[in-house]
């Protein structure tokens, strides 16, 4: 009984840290998107929009490398895209965190399962999947 209670509280600690992690991730990415969006509107507000046809090369910001290059030049679109990237990686951080908490609990079956999920996400990072 005392063992399960102890685990329950350990789980709760992890949950609280997780909640903070998620909130920080969302707030950070939103702030970056807001800054980028403001700069983007400042320089492009009266340009016409053209999203009628899908063109894979239009934004030129379709890799993490390209986003960082644009970030160095303070390109507003790259700043927005960087904020989006932070948002995408918030749940990924949650998976990494969960793997560590399973490791602490010595639940190796779930370390394995979590690592597999992480591998799938990391595999999608390689652009082999996009033809």
């Amino acid at each position, binding site marked *: 009984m005392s063992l399960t209670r102890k685990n329950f509280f350990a789980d709760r600690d992890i949950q609280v840290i997780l909640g903070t992690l998620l909130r920080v991730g969302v707030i950070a990415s939103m702030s970056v998107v*807001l800054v980028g969006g403001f700069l983007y509107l400042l320089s492009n507000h009266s340009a016409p929009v053209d*999203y009628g046809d899908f063109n894979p090369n239009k934004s030129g910001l379709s*890799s993490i490398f390209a986003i960082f290059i644009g970030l160095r030049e303070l390109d507003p679109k790259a700043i927005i895209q960087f904020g989006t990237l932070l948002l995408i990686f918030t749940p*990924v951080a949650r*998976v990494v965190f969960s793997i560590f908490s399973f490791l602490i609990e010595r639940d190796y079956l779930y370390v394995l399962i979590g690592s597999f*999920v992480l591998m799938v996400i990391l595999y999608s990072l390689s652009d082999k999947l996009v033809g």
Partner: protein
Amino acid sequence: MSVLLFTIIVLAGAFLAGLVGSLTGLGGGVIIIPLLTLALGVDIHYAIGASIVSVIATSSGSAAAYVKEGITNIRIGMFLEVATTVSAVIGAVITVYLNPGFIAVVFGLILLFSAAMMVIKKVDRSDNDTSGKLAVFFKLNGTYPTENGPKNYAVHRVAGGFVMMFFAGIISGLLGIGSGALKVIAMDNIMRIPFKVSTTTSNFMMGVTAAASAIVYLHRGQIDPGIAMPVTIGVLTGATIGSKILVRAKTDKLKVVFAVVVTFLALQMIYNGLSGKL
């Protein structure tokens, strides 16, 4: 249309989508995609990219509030993510090869299904009867806190739930939505997980699943900063305000009204998809 006007319209639409989405339990994507494609003439591939980002935003935003209650079953979530991440990546990879009209029709059908699921009264089928071998092996059974102390629950039909989740992941990757209605079927109806646990666990999974397909979309250029920016900001603001008023609001009537709106949008998407206008 100028960038400024476009941004304002999308921002307002995304705000409403996030607000109503969090009040009714339906994600923002079901409004975002029709708004962008039907009303603003945006190509559906861009709409999908913007929508998946909003799914991550709402998932992480509301999860931060949910985890305080401490009832997410991380093991169930992680176990089912094996199915959803693989299938979401598959869905995201194949979506670009599909005819936009076909995607619109599938989207419309899923919308109709989601609208029906929203108004049907849900029944909590959870119990603590003996569960299968798989649930024991994967340690999926758990407890959740109630006023009378922790309550045990058993997870049923793990294989069936896993397969259903695989399907939900494909739809999520294909259409850029959270496909919450399908996850409800898998977790509540098939696996018989109690509501208190399934809602938060499904939300946890939605963010991870969406992240997997979002990366594929990003590489393909489907996430355009000019669309993603107002969608993300709007949906997140709307969902945050929505979850604050949710505690006080009576949502039954709103759900019926919203179901009618969603049905109308679904028929529009199907019609436009079939007639090749998208």
